[in-house]
């Protein structure tokens, strides 16, 4: 989209007004998924598998159905089976055959927590009692949790008909390796032959959960004529509608989805879980059905991100030029294929201008919950490995780690190894800003170390719609279809529309439209919210302005070409001989009803031209050599954000991503027992960072505008979680003089590494 506006013209974009949803959220008025209720509603609960892998021989629900207060029970028999059918759904392509089995197990359960039945009852206590009365006859099967074990030929097999895709000729035996992929460029063997220094390491990360504070929650109401209303906490209400319609074999028009406020998603609310169950329970009971997950259910049954095993080999000349790069990424997909190994493979080395690259990826099924997206899916895992190896290589060459990255940095026009050349990017600018930051030169104390790492994410656009309604007093109702996933994008949308219309920000009231009032919107994922949503809002505002100009031309009886829009008014065009009395937005609005009707602007676009994002992070840590505990002392995140519409909320995105990355690096992990059962499904034992664990996270916003967006926006929500894992690992390695390659860097693991260090 062209018609970019220069910084000097801006009055609202770049300022820091209060978010329109702020008061509701700090006073408790905001309605999240669990806050929505209807008269006569029932409570739905799910019976989950206690086994990580078992064949379902029989399910008997008769006793549960006979319990007073139970109004409906559903099992696999209440949902149509689905053939293989693929669709885009936020992270990668989903297969509806797998989606219906993940929502409600059919032939087998594939992880501890896999749904096998659900009930709707007059209260939660009755529903829980009913779950105890459902008898499931299981044939327990051997299970596999670890990705490396799952890749072995003799590993317990999850899917008997799964043959590794991407291998030629087609294998003759099924495997847990669902897919092999490869990206390559140049001659890697020759590149390594030219190298004077080589670093080769193997890294491991654990699956981590998105850790959104609000568990999944929904309310469904199905009428006797088959109309469905669904309220749910989601990152994509249109996609939820599409998936429910597909799984339940309904027409899309019969389902209306209203998104509630969302208490965090980070990719974890791209996928349906309870929604189809609630709809069918409501259909069977003729009552609205509300389903709210417990935290334990969230951990056991919703998607974390993959755990990964990554092998990296890097070679360079003594003057600091990388000659070859190789990586093998083995990612857990969980119970069904579809990890983030493809994007991880594509961004593993994209920060660098390399002639010789080879990346191999494996998507591996194992007896864990099906993974979901998590901020820049897969990229933090790949960057942990590659940026650790880059740091070690820089150390071996005795080159400053930022200088080493600058010597090899990707720039505009750099040919990527996965496909296109990079457009206008700001990677070098983030490296230079980090190098110039006082943090980078601050002295360190004993047992302290400093780490640097960088991140890259593609960012996306996608289908998006918006409506700008000019109210009768000249204020504006803005309706957009990209959800505000708590980052403050509503404020950004309103700011761009106010900027276009030339009116105060406070006169634009933004709301997220439900699926009945706007055209299709893709999930708010891939850092597309403010980029694509903003593009749609600006397009709608400009259409409204064109209609305002046309209306004023008719009212003033002048040609429309003689009317321009400036500072919230329709005015005579500069230099035009045709003069007339300007009209403000409020004046036009007051006359609208009597001069042709209300005025609005609409946009239904498929946004293209998302600008890639790059970031450079610096962190200082202190290591307690006795306990292995690590304290983050100082953190600085530098990122090219294109242009920050609302800088405070962009800074918040960076700080939030860093906080999550610190948790991933230091503490978070799923702990399974030998029985394949998750042992830490709660925030007491699965430790995300709290405020006292974190220093102030300083941010530096570098602005290299995206030329494809009217305000230069680049997505900014995913890049900041990519670098922290490697930055912290590099800092700890420098503090200790030991390269640590397995996350999390929890006190026991660090203490063990210190104890095992050769004398």
């Amino acid at each position, binding site marked *: 989209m062209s018609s970019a506006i220069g910084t000097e013209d801006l009055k609202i974009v770049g300022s820091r007004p209060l978010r329109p949803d702020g008061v509701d959220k700090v006073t408790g008025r905001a309605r999240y998924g669990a806050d929505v209720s209807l008269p006569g509603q029932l409570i739905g609960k799910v019976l989950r598998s206690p086994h990580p892998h078992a064949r379902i021989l029989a399910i008997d629900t008769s006793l549960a159905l006979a319990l007073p207060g139970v109004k409906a029970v559903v099992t696999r028999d209440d949902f149509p089976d689905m053939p293989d059918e693929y669709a885009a759904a936020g992270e990668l392509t989903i297969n509806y055959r797998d989606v219906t089995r993940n929502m409600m197990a059919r032939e087998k359960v594939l992880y501890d927590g896999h749904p096998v039945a659900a009930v709707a009852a007059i209260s939660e206590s009755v529903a829980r009692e009913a779950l105890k009365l459902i008898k499931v006859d299981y044939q327990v099967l051997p299970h596999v949790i670890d990705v490396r074990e799952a890749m072995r030929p003799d590993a317990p097999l999850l899917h008997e008909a799964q043959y590794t895709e991407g291998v030629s000729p087609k294998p003759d035996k099924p495997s847990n390796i669902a897919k092999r992929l490869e990206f390559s460029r140049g001659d890697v063997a020759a590149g390594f032959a030219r190298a004077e220094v080589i670093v080769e390491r193997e890294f491991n990360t654990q699956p981590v959960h998105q850790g959104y504070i609000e568990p999944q929650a929904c309310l469904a109401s199905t009428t006797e004529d088959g109309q469905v209303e669904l309220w749910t906490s989601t990152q994509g209400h249109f996609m939820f509608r599409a998936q429910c319609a597909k799984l339940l074999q309904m027409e899309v028009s019969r389902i209306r989805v209203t998104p509630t406020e969302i208490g965090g998603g980070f990719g974890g609310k791209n996928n349906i879980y309870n929604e189809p169950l609630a709809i069918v329970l409501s259909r069977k009971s003729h009552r609205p059905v509300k389903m709210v997950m417990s935290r334990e259910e969230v951990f056991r049954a919703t998607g974390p991100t993959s755990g990964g095993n990554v092998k990296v080999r890097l070679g360079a000349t003594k003057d600091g030029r990388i000659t070859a790069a190789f990586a093998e990424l083995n990612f857990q997909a969980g119970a069904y294929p579809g990890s983030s190994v493809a994007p991880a493979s*594509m961004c593993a080395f994209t920060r660098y201008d390399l002639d010789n690259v080879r990346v191999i990826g494996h998507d591996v099924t194992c007896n864990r919950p099906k993974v979901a997206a998590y901020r820049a899916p897969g990229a933090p895992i790949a960057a942990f490995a590659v940026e650790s190896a880059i740091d070690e290589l820089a150390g071996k060459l005795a080159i400053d780690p930022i200088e080493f990255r600058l010597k090899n940095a990707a720039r505009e026009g750099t040919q990527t190894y*996965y496909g296109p050349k990079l457009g206008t990017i700001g990677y070098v600018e983030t490296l230079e800003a980090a190098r110039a930051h006082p943090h980078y030169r601050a002295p360190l104390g004993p047992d302290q170390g400093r780490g640097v790492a960088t991140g890259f994410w593609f960012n*996306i656009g996608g*289908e998006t719609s918006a409506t700008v309604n000019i109210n009768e007093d000249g204020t504006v109702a803005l309706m957009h279809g990209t959800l505000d996933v708590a980052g403050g994008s509503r404020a950004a949308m309103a700011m761009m529309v106010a900027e276009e219309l030339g009116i105060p920000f406070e006169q634009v009231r933004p709301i997220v439209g439900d699926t009945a009032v706007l055209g299709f919107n893709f999930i708010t994922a891939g850092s597309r919210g403010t980029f694509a949503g903003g593009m749609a809002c600006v397009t709608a505002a400009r259409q409204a302005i064109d209609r305002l100009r046309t209306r004023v031309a008719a009212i003033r009886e002048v040609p429309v070409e003689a009317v321009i829009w400036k500072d919230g008014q329709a005015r005579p065009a500069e230099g035009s001989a045709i003069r007339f009395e300007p009209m403000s937005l409020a004046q036009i609005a007051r006359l609208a009803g009597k001069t042709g009707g209300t005025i609005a602007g609409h946009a239904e676009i498929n946004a293209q031209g998302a600008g890639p994002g790059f970031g450079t992070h610096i962190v200082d840590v202190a290591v307690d050599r006795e306990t292995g505990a690590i304290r983050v002392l100082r953190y600085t995140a530098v990122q090219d954000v294109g242009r920050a519409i609302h800088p405070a909320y962009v800074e918040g995105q960076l700080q939030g991503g860093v906080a999550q990355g610190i948790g991933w690096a230091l503490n978070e992990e799923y702990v399974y027992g030998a029985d394949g059962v998750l042992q830490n499904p709660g925030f007491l034992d699965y430790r995300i960072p709290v405020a006292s664990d974190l220093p102030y996270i300083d941010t530096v916003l570098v602005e290299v505008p995206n030329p494809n967006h009217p305000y230069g926006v680049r997505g900014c929500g*995913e890049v900041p979680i990519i670098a922290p894992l490697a930055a912290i690992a590099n800092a700890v390695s420098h503090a200790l003089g030991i390269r640590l390659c397995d996350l999390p860097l929890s006190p026991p693991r660090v203490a063990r590494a210190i104890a095992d260090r050769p004398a």
Partner: protein
Amino acid sequence: MARISLSSGLALYTGGETAIELEVGNVRQLFAALGERYPELASRLETEIAVAIDGEIYQDALLQKIAGASEVFLFPKIAGG
């Protein structure tokens, strides 16, 4: 003729070819031509593939124009969290 490059991972479905020249006017025509030439690739084109035309990335943009001398890359679609 537009110069078409396929990411190396797609070579599995093209008999090893990753660079060809085609006379196509838009992405839909490109997919049709590629699908005809590489039947194993056909079913993946609209669901799994993104296209970069002269450095700009397009996803789900069948009507996007491709100029005669364009440089076109095909690679896996990108999404996110």
